[in-house]
């Protein structure tokens, strides 16, 4: 079998080649100028997209309404993000039937060494307040089983890296 013709050896890396590196840098800068012009528009359009979401039944003074699960999650996250020494990992709404609120699971990581029970209590209280505001008189009442706070991990440094 005749071996394929050997290609001339290319440079080890274009990074080591000043000319190619200069051209690559020029390529980066050239496109970046255009990006500056359009980036705000691209971001705002992306954020206008809506995520698929369950509808959860709530009770307004005028009667029953439905609230997006995403709205509940966002407001609950906002509320519990004020608890120190905690990073929120996940918020999951549980429903019964088609749209009846049944409970909440909040998964967090906590700073190493901080007492976990007071943190869980604080999170549960804040979640209760937000749920009451958003859903009206909800059932079942908020308990350790209907609002479950799960500590998944611990972190030590400020950034949790």
């Amino acid at each position: 079998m005749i071996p394929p013709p050997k290609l001339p050896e290319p440079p080890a890396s274009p990074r080591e080649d000043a000319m190619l590196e200069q051209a690559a840098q020029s390529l980066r800068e050239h496109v970046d100028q255009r990006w500056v012009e359009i980036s705000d528009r691209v971001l705002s359009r992306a954020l206008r997209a809506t995520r698929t979401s369950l509808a959860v039944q709530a009770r307004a003074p005028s009667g029953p309404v439905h609230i997006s699960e995403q709205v509940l999650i966002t407001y609950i996250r906002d509320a519990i993000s004020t608890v120190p020494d905690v990073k929120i990992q996940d918020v999951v709404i549980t429903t019964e039937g088609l749209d009846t609120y049944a409970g909440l699971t909040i998964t967090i990581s906590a700073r190493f060494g901080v007492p976990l029970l007071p943190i869980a209590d604080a999170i549960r209280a804040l979640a209760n307040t937000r749920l009451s505001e958003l859903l009206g008189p909800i059932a079942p009442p908020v308990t350790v089983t209907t609002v479950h706070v799960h500590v998944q991990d611990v972190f030590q440094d400020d950034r949790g890296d």
Partner: protein
Amino acid sequence: MHSGKGEDNPEPVSRVNDQDLARRAALGDRFAFAEIFHRHAAAMFRYAVHMLDGDVGQAEDAVQEALTQAWVHLPRFRGDSALQTWLFRITANCVLSARRRRRPIVGEDWVLTLPAGPDTDPVARAQHEELRVALEAALGELPWRQRASWLLRELEGLSYEEIADTLNTSPTVIRGQLHRARGTLAVRMAQWR
């Protein structure tokens, strides 16, 4: 927007790592998504422009689609790969779709006529421009996987493993693709040495 530095959260998003930003954005934090955008979207756009032969209009559409998908699907992101890799994977798919949709068109001048660079010396600027245009032309002749591999490696600094993850192949294949891409570019750009 609902949260971020300005409201209750005491930690500025600029200090938060990518994985935590992704979790926050998945839970609806628009400030976190904006920070992800500022960190990674320019590179996504660069990739799209060069994969679409300098067509900035198509590249904008592809990146718009990629970022919209990223915002919508972030709740499904589990952190199995780096956030940057996940974003590039979405971008690569959107770019590929755009390439399949496009009609073959003759390159137009406006595609390459973007604002001049920061160089003040007209001669240096002209040389810079010629060099860039030559590299764009050489890149345009590469098969798409070689071009994608080269762009992700040399312009964006991704590792072989990250490029393989982005392009849904193996690091060994990427190594071969890069070798061939570098060989072709070395030949095509030889006159500039």
